[in-house]
């Protein structure tokens, strides 16, 4: 994993920043949300993909692309979480003052 991280750290950082930006926006975003049901299905899909990656059943380049996608997605989620939490913190700190 360390080897892979050194190999495409730029893309991982990009995913993290993208997630951070998305998380930052999401707190105050008024657009449509993913329904609970869809979110569940998506979680199941991601879990299945994760399981496939860990079991190493996807061969060759597809396997590598799956790993790459999952890592980027994981960092995106981390970025989102940090972004949302920070934005929430900034917003909630600003509210009493306003």
């Amino acid at each position, binding site marked *: 994993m*360390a*080897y*892979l991280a050194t*190999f*495409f750290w730029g*893309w991982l950082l*990009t*995913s993290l920043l*993208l*997630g951070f*930006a*998305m*998380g930052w*926006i*999401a*707190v105050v*975003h008024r*657009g449509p*949300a*993913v*329904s*609970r049901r869809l*979110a569940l299905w998506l979680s199941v899909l991601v879990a299945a993909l994760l399981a496939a990656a860990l079991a*190493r059943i996807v*061969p*060759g*380049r*597809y*396997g*590598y*692309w799956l*790993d*790459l*996608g999952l890592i*980027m*997605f994981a960092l*995106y*989620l981390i970025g*989102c*979480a940090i972004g*949302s*939490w920070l934005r*929430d913190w900034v917003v909630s700190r600003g509210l009493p003052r306003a």
Partner: protein
Amino acid sequence: MHGLFRWSSKWWPGVIPLVVFWAFAAWTSTIPLETDLAARSNAALKDTVLDKQRISVLGRDVGLSAEAFSEEGRLHAVGSVAAVPGVRLVNDNTRLVPEAKPFVWSAERDVARVTLGGSAPLPASKTRLLETARNALGGVEVADQMSLARGAPPRFDNAAALLIDQIAKLKDGKITLSDTKVSLAGMARELGGREAIAAALRNLPEGFSVAANDIKAPPYVFQAYKDPVASTLTLTGNVPDNNVHAALVANAGRKFFSEKVVDNLKASVGAPAGFAQAVVPALGALSRLSTGTLVVSDREVKLSGDALYDAAAQQIRAGLGKDFPQGWQFKAEISVKPQPSAVDATVCQQLFADLLTKARIRFESGSAELSQDSLGLLDRLTETAMRCPNANIEIAGHTDADGDPAANQALSEKRAQTVMDFLVRAGLPANRFTAVGYGASQPLAGNDTDEGKAQNRRIDFVVK
């Protein structure tokens, strides 16, 4: 935490650019990653001995196909690649190098090249054998047709290297090593090569043995050419050693009293047994010819040329083979030289005197038996006697003054009679000759020195 869950329902729009980035990342990083993993995998296998090693990388999966020389080596190779950072899976297509039974290795030499074939146990030993061959063979082309196989006997490399040294001693031939048995066939490059190879094979590593040694040596050739025009006897070819060399040249000097001996002999090992015992009488036969060539090739003696008269030709044809050691063959192509023109008695006397000043008729010490060294001279005396058919000739025997005068007298008579018998056997009428013994009564020189005595011991031909 509840907030995080709520916000996450709004995170999805970022997934769209994320997918685009993912596609870009996959597009740009796959080939460099595969190249890098291939290089690292190859580096990891650098110290592992494998044959036909091939690495193909798809994504993070490394396909390894190779032939290993032991199960341990095979597992080690797979493990080394699997341990390379970044490698996800190793698709193991390795197998063991096939086992050769029997384990056969060969070196074959022809006119143009030396071909190493059969099996070698390891790539390193294959390289080493090729290098040994190139060093041992100088500029000769070395072709490699060796394949790799398991199952070589212990100390194979040492045995094969020793055999490569032997192929260098061959003109053509093949050396085969089958498990621990060595078979050799072919022709040695030089005289003595066969013996040198046989000697070297005694140093084969423990456990190896010679199953068949059919190395042939080039023929051991000795030649002598008697040229009456240049008045030379040319000796060429091989002699077993310097002692035999000196003895042969000295012997030729005695037998060829009027020819200069040109000595181009060289000492070489590999002479057939009984070489000197065959060559000395053969040279004696050649000395009786007017012109002739003697070729001794291994154990075959060929004598061709012109005898001085019929009876001599017959004696040579019939007599020579008898003196040879067992196993020797004799082929004679003897013709008879035309009889020279007749001369009168005075010229005859002169011719006798000329011959007898060049050489003396020799006898075995203290006896009346003719020395074999004098047959050439006797043939010439006979030929001369045939040229003056009307002359009566006294064959006069003389001795030195040593010993009992009566014994000397008897010896001189017997020796004169022996010479006369020789002439009669050659076909001359007995009534033309008288054999007379003078003992020590007519010395040519003083009897006080060895040289003088030697001059006094003689047979004279006196035309009456």
